[in-house]
């Protein structure tokens, strides 16, 4: 399954007709130990780039943006209950939300893995 990335270090991949969204390993490393996660309610709709969730380390709070427009259909309560999971497996078990995309082809406008890696190298 192809994973797409944003310049703000979110990842998104399609599972059937649902987009799974999380933050990248790089983002998790930069944040340090995650101590708090706030996720949106299911049913809420976001535009591309809207503040969607919050992730906080001891020192700082960061917004997580919606990588594509769509409606929240599920959230990962496990990372709210145990924020440290975000550091353990940010690109796997510690997904943030599942969205029903307003337009699934919006993923095509995001970076593929090679482009994201290049972004990190040039950062």
């Amino acid at each position, binding site marked *: 399954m192809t994973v797409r990335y944003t310049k703000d270090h979110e990842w998104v991949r399609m599972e059937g007709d649902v987009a799974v969204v999380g933050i990248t390993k790089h983002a998790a490393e930069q944040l340090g*130990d995650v*101590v708090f996660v706030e996720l949106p309610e299911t049913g809420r709709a976001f535009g591309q780039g809207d503040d969607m969730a919050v992730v906080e380390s*001891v020192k700082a709070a960061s917004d997580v943006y919606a990588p594509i427009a769509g409606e929240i259909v599920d959230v990962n309560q496990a990372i709210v209950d145990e924020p440290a999971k975000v550091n353990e497996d940010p690109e796997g078990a510690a997904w943030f939300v599942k969205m029903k995309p307003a337009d699934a082809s919006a993923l095509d406008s995001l970076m593929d893995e090679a482009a994201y890696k290049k972004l990190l190298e040039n950062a």
Partner: protein
Amino acid sequence: MTIESLSDLKRTALHELHLELGAKMVPFAGYAMPVQYPDGVLKEHLHTREKAGLFDVSHMGQAFLRTTETPIGSEEAHRAVADAIETLVPGEIRKLKKGGLRYSVFLNDQGGILDDLMITRPEEDARQGALFLVVNAAVKDRDFDLLKEKLSGRTTLEILESRSLLAIQGPKAAGVVEALLPGSGAQGFMTMRARAWNGVEVFVSRCGYTGEDGFEISVPDTHAGDLARALLDHPDVAPAGLGARDSLRLEAGLCLYGHDIDETTSPVEADLAFAIGKRRREEGGFPGAARILKELAESPKRKRVGIRPEGRAPAREGTEIQTTDGVRIGVVTSGGFGPSVNGPVAMGYVAADFAAPGTALNLIVRGKALAARVVAMPFAPHRYFRG
């Protein structure tokens, strides 16, 4: 932050060691300082509370203030230098014991806090008439200018540009320091002793900024790296950065200058009235005495308090504080996640009527009102050495 701008910053004598240890360096008060090491803020914080953390605080200002009114080395000389500095601080310095430390604040004429500092009376008879001062990095130039200007003709100021300052904090610190600097483990809380180490003189103070037992050691730059490595050689000691220093002091309820206290806050508002000596309350004679004595008698309009958000969301500096009815009554000045508390903690100023522990408040975080309560500080119990 780019590499170029970091290179413009001043470096402490431990810079190479920080890089070797894998520190993430950030600009702080004009210095490149380690904000964290590879273990990260959370582990560094918990390690310090459990065993011992080593902090480089060499960016802080160190100086000797000496009287010029009386020859150094007598009780009269101490009285002279104490009387001089007491014109700038509200603390009882005259009666400070030989080898004793006192926490104090420089005040402006409005009774606002220009900086907080440690004032130490040396133990040695030959050094009576001198005071050892440690001030905050961000305002050290202003502090030193203040001392030179206000105390000219009475004192000289020797700024110790070539001394580093290492803080070792935590329940295992005493054993570690005792092994390298014998006698230190028996030192009382808030005392300083000059000791010899590898041919140089170090000043060992039993104090700190974490709420734990610990020491701050002033050491010549030439020997700072060796001393830091010798401390780190002990298996109980891990390096800790500014990130952990901040979360530790917040849990300990201690103020950060420029955030929790500044030129607009008085020591009474800041809940630092313990730093105002009994004789000083009777005699006055410090800057802003009129306001401060009035606040002591009548209670200030606002007070610094500890705040526990009831949920898990941290409330950061700048967060608006409201009554449960939505009336603005103050602002958070420091806030974050307390690793030892295992939850969010904050401090801030509230209108005096809302300062009693247990008072329910709302914190406005990302537009939402989060329930919180005023609590007594510290958030994590102080564990200072009590002999």
